[in-house]
């Protein structure tokens, strides 16, 4: 029995009096019953039982909302920004409007489209971009799943995640140096769920054509593709704690018509108490990148980068994220960026959140500079779950 008469929180009578005056009648849920009572099926069961013990009134009406239209959702991402260098220090813009269209096509495949109406950081002009558009098979044998189309590639944890779902506003320096706004190409992706009953293991192999403009991998003028392999290992330590360890290898053509090879690793520790998972949680996530780019027949350049962040849920709606970035420039590893950032987030509901981030960056070429952002994410329509 859990009867409580706790006195953990007390509100002063004066405050109560003020609140009484300000009382707002907000219980405005307008609902009606589908029926004043139970279903036809239940009635049928009752008749079968010949018990006559329950009073089960009329059947329910047919359910509403049936449609063959895809699930449609729109995510708005409004931002304000500040930077301590340059002429224009303060700006405000609708950073992105993402429209998602998702549905099962037939018994064999489903389709997911994410159309992004975004703002170019350099030109400041808005344009349309197919962020992702792919089909996924539903019925391949041997625990296989094939994706075909344009998709976010399976590099670690950040790349497959849509920006609005991340617990910070800017991307880590190392990630931007290697992938720009993301490794996101056209091609094929084959995923295999390994028959391991002790822990979750998935291997993903991808072959893509590359983009015209990208920091590391480029679309080849001949028949060379970008090849990627990712092994994901997910361990359940206990009901409240999990650990994910991933390793990724990428090989593909670069802007010198030669090959760049990358090796990346990701490690994610999550603590979410099952019973109170909406109130408290902690995520510690890190990714490491190594790149080796051949520029001539005899010259190649290697570099490394990493980020590590801790995202702590202070209360039901409040999150705090601290992140450290370390990044060697891929073209010259002697230029090293280091950055520290802190983001505070307030999740009003599952469908809107406000975040504020402050960041300081230092490299060995220019003096330290400071940045700040404000982001307001808002969602209408359907919105599916994000990766755990």
């Amino acid at each position, binding site marked *: 029995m859990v009867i409580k008469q*706790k006195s953990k929180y007390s509100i002063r009578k004066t405050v109560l009096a003020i609140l*009484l005056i300000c009382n707002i009648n907000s219980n405005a849920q307008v609902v009606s019953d589908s029926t004043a009572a139970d279903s036809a099926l239940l009635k049928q069961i009752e008749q079968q039982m010949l018990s006559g013990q329950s009073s089960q009134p009329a059947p329910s009406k047919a359910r509403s909302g049936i449609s063959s239209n895809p699930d449609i959702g729109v995510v708005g991402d409004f931002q304000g920004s500040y930077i301590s260098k340059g002429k224009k220090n303060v700006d405000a813009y609708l950073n992105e409007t993402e429209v998602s269209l998702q549905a099962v096509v037939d018994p064999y495949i489903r389709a997911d489209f994410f159309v992004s109406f975004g703002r170019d950081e350099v030109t400041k002009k808005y344009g349309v971009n197919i962020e992702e558009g792919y089909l996924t098979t539903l019925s391949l044998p041997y625990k296989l799943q094939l994706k075909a189309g344009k998709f976010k590639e399976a590099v670690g944890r950040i790349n497959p995640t849509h920006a609005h779902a991340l617990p910070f506003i800017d991307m880590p320096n190392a990630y931007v140096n290697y992938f720009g706004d993301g490794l996101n190409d056209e091609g094929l992706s084959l995923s295999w769920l390994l028959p391991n009953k002790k822990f979750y293991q998935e291997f993903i192999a991808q072959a893509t054509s590359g983009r015209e403009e990208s920091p590391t991998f480029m679309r080849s003028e001949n028949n060379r593709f970008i090849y990627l392999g990712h092994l994901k290992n997910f361990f359940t330590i206990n009901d409240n704690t999990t650990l994910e360890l991933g390793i990724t290898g990428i090989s593909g053509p670069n802007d010198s018509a030669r090959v760049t090879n990358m090796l990346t690793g990701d490690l994610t520790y999550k603590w979410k108490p099952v019973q109170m998972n*909406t109130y408290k949680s902690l995520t510690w996530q890190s990714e490491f990148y190594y790149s080796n780019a051949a520029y001539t027949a005899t010259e190649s350049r290697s570099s490394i980068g990493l980020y590590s962040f801790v995202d702590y849920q202070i209360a039901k709606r409040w999150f705090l994220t601290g992140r450290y970035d370390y990044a060697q420039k891929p073209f010259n590893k002697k230029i090293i960026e280091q950055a520290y950032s802190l983001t505070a987030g307030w999740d009003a509901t599952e469908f809107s959140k406000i975040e504020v981030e402050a960041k300081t960056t230092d490299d060995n070429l220019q003096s330290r500079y400071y940045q700040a952002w404000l982001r307001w994410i808002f969602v209408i329509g359907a919105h599916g779950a994000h990766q755990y």
Partner: protein
Amino acid sequence: MIKMNSIKTKNSMKIKLMIPVALLAVSFTVAKAGTIKVVTTTTDLKSITELVGGNKVSVSSIATGFQNPHFVDPKPSYIISLSNADLFVTVGLDLETGWSPQLLSSSRNTKIQKGSAGYVDASEGVGLLQVPSSVNRGEGDIHIYGNPHYWLDPYNGKVIARNIADGLERIDPSNKTFYEDNLQTFFKKINEKMAEWQTRMAPYKGSKIIAYHNEWCYFERRFGLTIVDFMEPKPGIPPSPSQLVKVIKEVAADKIKVIISSPYFSTSSSDVVAKQTGVKELTLATSVNAFNPIKNYFDLFDYDIDQLITTLK
């Protein structure tokens, strides 16, 4: 000699014991290998599946009995059991919309996808309450098909059991008689227990209570309670100061004795109301295994009714 004999006797006894144990182990392995593997989203569905499926099924639940079924984290580890399942049972009505569709599509298991023989929506045929006439998220977490907490009416347990039996019979028709017999036993026990529960609750018919979240409407209607208001100003929105003031006034005006909540909600706001008014706080179970004594679907109502009666006395 005596020692030798005793050793021999012990050894022969050991061998004699080992043979049946080994046979039991083999038969157990065979039996387990032949069982229908069922994954349910909640522990209530697991309990009913076990009652209907008996020794023909091995069942696991994704959610525990003490967590909020709206907000289960879609951990990849759940995909392992889903990928090997023969039957998947869901509460439906978008209760699990934030997590189960993603897990299902990642399972690569065609047997349990929506529309397949191994997919059971336990809500099929349930008479729904609070079906909205229009959908506006300004009203909070509104479920477009109606309130999804229907398993908290024991009579709806019968509908759930019928749907689960149908699913089991689709994929294992050779044991139809077995499932039907268990189903009839379940119906009979529900009827017997309902008579007991309603008799016990009769003196408290019309009792006014406050609930934390709008998840008790089926229980409320079946057992004749009256939920006056909720701690949440709108479903899914945490209690606001103005809502607390409103509830404090209602508790005083209606002489409300109890605020009921669930194991996965913070009690900090109802603590405030309790301190101001003297109203009692009661954490009821919304699912099987929410608390230790609740081992099956019948225990769930035994527990909640015991707690309510003790508090409302």
